[in-house]
């Protein structure tokens, strides 16, 4: 496993694309900035939607209306994050792929996206689905808390990749 990962990293690092990404000084900072701006869209959309679920903000709007308004920003940012993230991986494969925090970040991403979907899907049929019954109000409170924690943890993990390097 470790050997294969080593081989993949060396192969990627030897490609002309990787060489270009690392040798042109502005590429990595620019791509990282684009990545952060897309993260801004994701975390802001997640915050607004989850604050509505928690009953803190935007109470004049139905939950379904808030998710319809803001979650497309979250979902459409993911392809941007994928492309910019992949560029950073191709540029410095060992820095990212060998960092245990990167794996953690990907796991958290799957969890956060799943929780967000679980919240969103019922609202597409019924805009106040989560407020109709007591168990649903409770459930959405837990889902919203989990979602905010997970998206925050993803940002933290992203920053920690720079510090926790594999051998």
């Amino acid at each position: 496993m470790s050997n294969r990962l080593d081989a993949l990293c060396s192969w990627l690092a030897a490609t002309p694309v990787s060489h270009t990404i690392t040798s042109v000084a502005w590429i990595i900072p620019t791509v990282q900035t684009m990545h952060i701006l897309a993260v801004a869209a994701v975390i802001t959309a997640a915050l607004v939607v989850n604050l509505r679920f928690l009953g803190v903000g935007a109470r004049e709007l139905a939950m379904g209306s808030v998710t319809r308004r803001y979650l497309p920003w979250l979902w459409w940012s993911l392809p941007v994050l994928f492309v910019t993230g992949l560029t950073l991986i191709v540029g410095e494969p060992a820095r990212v792929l060998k960092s245990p925090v990167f794996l953690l970040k990907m796991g958290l991403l799957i969890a956060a996206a799943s929780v967000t979907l679980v919240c969103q899907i019922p609202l597409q049929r019924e805009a106040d689905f989560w407020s109709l019954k007591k168990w649903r109000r409770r459930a959405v409170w837990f889902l919203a808390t989990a979602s905010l924690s997970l998206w925050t943890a993803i940002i933290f993990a992203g920053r920690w990749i720079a510090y926790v390097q594999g051998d």
Partner: protein
Amino acid sequence: MLQMFLQFLHDSAIATAIREGESLFPWIECIHVLALTLVIGSIAIVDLRLIGLTSRDRSVTQTTALALPVTWTAFVVAALTGGLLFSSNATVYAHNSFFQLKVALIALAGLNMVAYHLVLGRGAAGWHTPAQTPWRARLAGGLSLGLWIAIAVCGRWIGFTISTPT
């Protein structure tokens, strides 16, 4: 005078702890990144509404009521954590061009906000649906969006022009 102040910051107990600690700097950076993404994201909600690209079915004041509490809370957190990161290496950051530019751009964004409240946004309470906002609102929104993106660019470049992990 400035040099003395920077040295004083640099030598303070908290700055020393951040500089010499193993993980204090990255943790403060994490909170800084979280806060700044929320500042930019929530300001973008307002800017895009002012420009007339999103939330056209809601009034400008409804949109600002939703977004600005997030902006202000996050801005305070970003400024505090930014100050802590700065203090850990005050003299070096103070001489970094991207840091200087970033501070100047934040000041400009602040001026733009003041101009919006005093002049450009006059009559905002009446900007309901459907949404052709006046040119001065579109100007303030466009300037703000551009400035905050430039601030993010400068912020990232500070890390590449100073020898810390990127």
